[in-house]
């Protein structure tokens, strides 16, 4: 009995000593690489799937398509894999920022933000403009634009413009996937500047339900426009 008591006391003292020796938690700021973040990156698809369960169906549908895109990117322990994932996470910023349910904000977004910050730090890319324009980035941008347009279709009056823009995005995506020339991208970007297409994007941003999707489309179109 006395032995047990002594062991317990020793354990308590040891715990107390460890607690005192542990430096205070670092102030909140850019995420630091941790085992959790590495594991999180490998489970990004599962994380998005869990987030999707708490979203309205049209937003869950968008995230599902983004998850499929992530699955097509190389493994996260490669440079191409982490760069691709970083791009998708940064491009998702406006969409994620627009999720306002208490549960999503409290339980899901911190995890996404932590991984996004970790990847962005790791790649040294805080915004979309930090990512060099490459065939892979363009492909990812086009998939995300197309998915955002599809998920917004129930909320727009400018259906014709939406269908046209989506078709052009699909064509450009196929051309890029087939390693063809990038002229389709120029057509898409030019079309996005049309008055009608501009009105469509503005109305998506103005509507509460599609603000995040609209901002995603606008920022990715701006990215595609870069030389």
């Amino acid at each position, binding site marked *: 009995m006395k032995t047990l008591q002594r062991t317990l006391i020793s354990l308590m003292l040891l715990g107390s000593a460890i607690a005192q020796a542990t430096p205070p938690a670092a102030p909140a700021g850019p995420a630091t690489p941790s085992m959790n973040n590495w594991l999180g990156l490998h489970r990004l698809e599962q994380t998005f799937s869990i987030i*999707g*369960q*708490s*979203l*309205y*169906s049209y937003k*869950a549908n968008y995230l599902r398509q983004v998850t499929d895109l992530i699955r097509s990117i190389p493994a996260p322990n490669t440079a191409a894999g982490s760069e691709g994932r970083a791009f998708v996470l940064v491009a998702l910023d406006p969409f994620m920022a627009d*999720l*306002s*349910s*208490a*549960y*999503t904000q409290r339980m899901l977004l911190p995890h996404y933000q932590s991984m996004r910050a970790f990847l962005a730090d790791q790649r040294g890319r805080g915004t979309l403009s930090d990512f060099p324009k490459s065939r892979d980035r363009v492909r990812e941008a086009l998939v995300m634009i197309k998915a955002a347009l599809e998920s917004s279709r129930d909320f727009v009056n400018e259906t014709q413009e939406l269908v046209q823009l989506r078709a052009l995005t699909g064509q450009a995506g196929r051309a890029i996937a087939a390693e063809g020339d990038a002229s389709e991208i120029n057509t898409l970007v030019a079309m996005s500047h049309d008055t009608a297409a501009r009105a469509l994007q503005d109305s998506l941003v103005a509507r*509460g*339900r599609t603000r995040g999707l609209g901002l995603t489309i606008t920022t990715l179109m701006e990215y595609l426009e870069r030389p």
Partner: protein
Amino acid sequence: MRTQLIALTILTSLSTASAPIAAHANLPGETQAASMGLAELARNLNRLIYLTRLVEQHIERMDLPRIVTLRSLSQGVIDSMNTAGATNMLTLQKVQELVIGFRFSRDLFAMISTQKTAQAVAEMQSIGNQIARASGFDQSPHTRITASVLGKMHELTVQMSRLQIPEALSQRLRQAQPAIGRVLSIAQTGDHASTFAAATDLLPQLRALSADLNQIASGNAAFMTAIEIQGLIEFYSEFAQINESSQGALQ
């Protein structure tokens, strides 16, 4: 004498047209069933409040006010049942407000349903439908007094035109029937602006019958029917606040 009879007819019409549903609770042998219904209503309302709290965590800011309102309407019914009583008119009014809240939330429910909340949202809708059916407010969020009065009036005019009455009156009654039918079809959706507008047009035409109806002597078989038609016209004019100077397009 004629005025007193008309007043009596109004009372009869009112008592048959708007007998409160809750009055059944006072019928012999039905007290237990009614109280069981009320207990179930209270249970459903509490469940509804619980579900709104559950769902609230998963809905976006722009949809929050609607869910909070549904909860507040449910709580309003419970509070009214506790303070005024389950069969009080105020409670019935609160139930109707809740039913209206649900009626105009169908799109909202379709929107806010997520994989996580689908079951809770479906249960909320199911409870809302049950309350609507049980309260009898499921057909329309509006009262249906115009439809009730005009339906009765249409029946009486048809009935009267078959009796031994002066040809001029019979002709006027037949002429009025299609107009009553038209307003009646609008009134089927409840008492709202377009119903009152149509009724305002119709009323002068019906009032114009009064001179002929007054000619029916008390010994005539059509006397009580004439009195009843006049009573309904008076009652409805007062209900819809349509005064005698209102000019109808049909006249």
